[in-house]
């Protein structure tokens, strides 16, 4: 995050002059609006903000932001963004990707950007489908998904984006639904302030090829979401249910309260963004339909960033060795002089 002289911005200031080209009703519209509104609220400097994306419907995002933007190639946004961030630590670099772009073809760059704790804010639009190529299943699609390339149902076990990000080493992990502007704004703001690899899963609806895939979760926020809050127990269903750590470290849904078959609130797991990795893994494994989905910031950790360390090494080298002397560098190794008379010195 760049030190900004705070300027008042409105959402409009973040809108580019390009026509937005998503399908009517696409969840991407809501995300775009929330990102624009949040960045305006945060008074970011537009010139120091860069959106880098891959290819996919979601990856058209940068065209609509009145900031710097780079629509790269399929799956490679984290790599391009890394090169940019390492060399330009003064910039805020956001990455916009989809479940196909970021977890199928681009899974490796995602893994390594997260592992390195590259200071990138990565937004993964998860619609569980390939939108742009017209509806093939993706690595996040449920087993048995019938789609263009799987008329009899997919036989791939899906990847859990949050588990993946955690396993890879992301230092800020969060989740929000496309239409929950309030939660998303809160998450984006904290992400913006985090130094390190941010991974945010945005549950996004593709009305054309995978309509309603998140409906069950989104339509029943009380029953199907746990809104995470620091220091608060994992409660849902209006506080009547909660998550407890059962035997063998298995999370359990329990009825909360007094009386037979119910457990006191104090038995529940208590949320801590900076909790242990094991706790975070447990949160990651809470997935619909077996469990309500944790929403908000699941995990964060302060850890040196790749770009920070790399630039520190540069500074240290310059300090220790002095600014490079090219003449001297040229003269290193096995060097000799031949005099005007052709003799060596």
């Amino acid at each position: 995050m760049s030190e900004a002289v705070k300027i008042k911005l409105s959402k409009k200031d973040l809108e580019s002059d390009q026509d937005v080209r998503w399908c009517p009703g696409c969840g991407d519209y809501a995300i775009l609006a929330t990102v624009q509104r949040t960045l305006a609220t945060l008074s970011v400097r537009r010139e120091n903000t860069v959106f880098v994306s891959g290819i996919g419907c979601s990856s058209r995002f940068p065209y609509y932001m009145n900031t710097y933007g780079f629509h790269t190639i399929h799956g490679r946004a984290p790599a391009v963004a890394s090169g940019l961030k390492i060399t330009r630590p003064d910039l805020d670099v956001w990455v916009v990707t989809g479940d196909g772009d970021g977890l199928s073809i681009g899974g490796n760059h995602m893994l390594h950007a997260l592992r390195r704790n590259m200071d990138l804010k990565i937004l993964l639009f998860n619609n569980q489908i390939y939108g742009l190529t017209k509806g093939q299943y993706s690595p996040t699609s449920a087993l048995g998904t019938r789609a263009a390339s799987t008329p009899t149902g997919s036989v791939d076990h899906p990847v859990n984006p949050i588990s993946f990000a955690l396993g890879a080493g992301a230092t800020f992990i969060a989740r929000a639904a496309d239409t929950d502007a309030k939660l998303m704004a809160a998450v984006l703001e904290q992400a913006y302030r985090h130094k390190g690899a941010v991974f945010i899963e945005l549950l996004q609806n593709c009305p054309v090829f995978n309509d309603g895939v998140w409906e069950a979760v989104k339509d029943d926020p009380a029953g199907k979401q746990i809104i995470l809050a620091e220091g608060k127990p994992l409660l849902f269903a209006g506080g009547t249910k909660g998550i407890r750590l059962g035997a063998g470290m298995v999370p359990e849904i329990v009825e909360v309260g007094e009386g037979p078959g119910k457990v006191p609130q104090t038995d529940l797991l208590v949320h801590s963004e900076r909790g242990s990795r094991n706790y975070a893994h447990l949160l990651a494994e809470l997935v619909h339909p077996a469990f309500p989905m944790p929403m908000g910031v699941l995990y964060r950790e302060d850890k040196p960033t790749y770009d920070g360390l790399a630039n520190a090494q540069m500074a240290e080298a310059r300090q220790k060795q002095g600014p490079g002397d090219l003449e001297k560098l040229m003269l290193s190794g096995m060097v000799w002089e031949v005099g005007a008379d052709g003799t060596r010195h």
Partner: protein
Amino acid sequence: MAETKNLDRVVIRFVGDSGDGMQLTGTEFAKAAAEAGNDISTFPDFPAEIRAPAGSLFGVSGFQLHFSSSDIYTPGDAPDVLVAMNPAALKTNIKDLVDAGTLIVNTGTFIDANLKKAGYAQNPLESGDLEKRYKVHLIDISHLTSAALDGTSLSTKEKGRAKNFFALGLVFWMYGRDPESEIRRIHQQFAKKPEFGEANVKVFKAGYHYGETAEVFQTVYKVPPANFAPGMYRNITGNEAAALGLVVGAHLSGKPMFFSGYPITPASAILHSLARYKNFGCMTFQAEDEIAAMGAAIGAAYGGSVAVTASSGPGIALKGEAIGLAVMTELPVIIVNVQRGGPSTGLPTKTEQSDLFQAIYGRNGEAPLPVIAAKSPGDCFYCAVEATRIAIKYMVPVILLSDGYIANGSEPWPLPNLSSLPRFDVTHRTDPKDYFVYERDPKTLARQWVVPGTPGLEHRIGGIEKDALTGNISYDPMNHEKQVHVRAEKIERVAQDIGELDLRGEESGDVLVIGWGGTFGALRQATDGLRARGKRVSHAHVRWLSPMEPGLARVIKNFKHVMVAELNLGQLRAILRATFLVDAIGLNKVQGQPFKVREVELAIENLLGADAPLPEGVTQTRSANA
């Protein structure tokens, strides 16, 4: 006392097990030759294995050095002197030794186990056959080495490791080199482990004294200094020179440098060198793969760095799609390909020139870019500077072709006067008024390099076809047609910046030999030689392969024969035939080895009417259809 005999030039090859330290021996002797004022050229030839099992045929490591009192261009066709440290080394190298050449053998390793590993049913040293063809010196170097170290605290194994210094001492004596400076160097090198330094010096001296006393060598040879132009010289490999050139290129443009790479033989050394130049503003990044390396370079270029990536054939193949993105977004990236034997994994440690087609054509769509090829180790420096300049000036990715031969080989290199190199400072536009993302410089057709962080110039770029002015996505048919032509024309315009054609000899004649890249030395030496014998032979060495050097158009039709010599099946040849419609024939060799001068000479002599058979494998390709 041995007599002293003057020689104009000597080719010596050290061969032994990978563990025997032949690369060190060769390098040290090369230093001594350079110090003595000789022109030198080296050719290290390692096995593919890191450390192959001792004694195996595939574990043989070699280092060839050509040193001379006159100008030389190559490490020599065939060794005059062969130092073989074990049976496997003898077996794989003896066929190359010139007739009546000097053979020095470490007999101590000719034990049954090693003979068997080398596939010798009989000990070849005992048959007497070798003596019929060569001047053979059988020395039990293993024994003499451990004898020299008797009484030191070193283990038997450690003692064994010093035997290359015996060989080094011996050849120092044979060629009258100054042992003192070598002794100093050994001490220096082993400063952290002085006991090894001591031991190696002991053995080195033992070798030297063996030559002096053993009376087996009747002659000490002297190769007088060559006639170097005055100035500073440095012995340099192609990869070192490329790294330096990139640093200097970035410096001349006034920009920081970003290098991202993924290790691959024989390109890794560039990454290794640059990683040490942090105080010169070189940021290096070892990416997770070649695609990421290219992607990161694009990101860095977008951010305003001089962005570089280097790899070899298979890695460049992986970068193809991303290079296309750099073409489309018109960002300056330098892509170095240190070519090796292909296809696929191929021959990773051997040299070849078979990635030219890939460099020029290996992307989807019409995706032209400039391609430059270095001709020698030292030339890698200039090509790197030039590639940087062109990339920035024309806002294009540029491919720089090197190859395993010049990347690992070394030569004495007259150091350039840095202050005489022209600067090409970059100014990034900051004026927001009337900015159009794809507006072009009328002369170079380059768009402007605007970097993030510049207020008021916020814009978006990407890999979809862009409007020729605004850079916005455009599916308009005529816009696409226009942009495809503009991108092609921009590459053609690079010709404005290409210097004179490197032509040696007359502009017309009987044979024009055309080459590119690391074959320069062999081609120049062969053609110079023939011209010295009165033949009407010229040599044009192409530096820019794309756009094709304009100078070629003037001369290519003035010769009876045009022969394109390449270490591939005729890639430049095809391009020249298509461009100029001349019936160029090919001289082709695909053996993981550079051309020998004699191979080139023979091929030219054939065109001049001789009817000599070419050496095995080398082919003179004529057109069937034309």
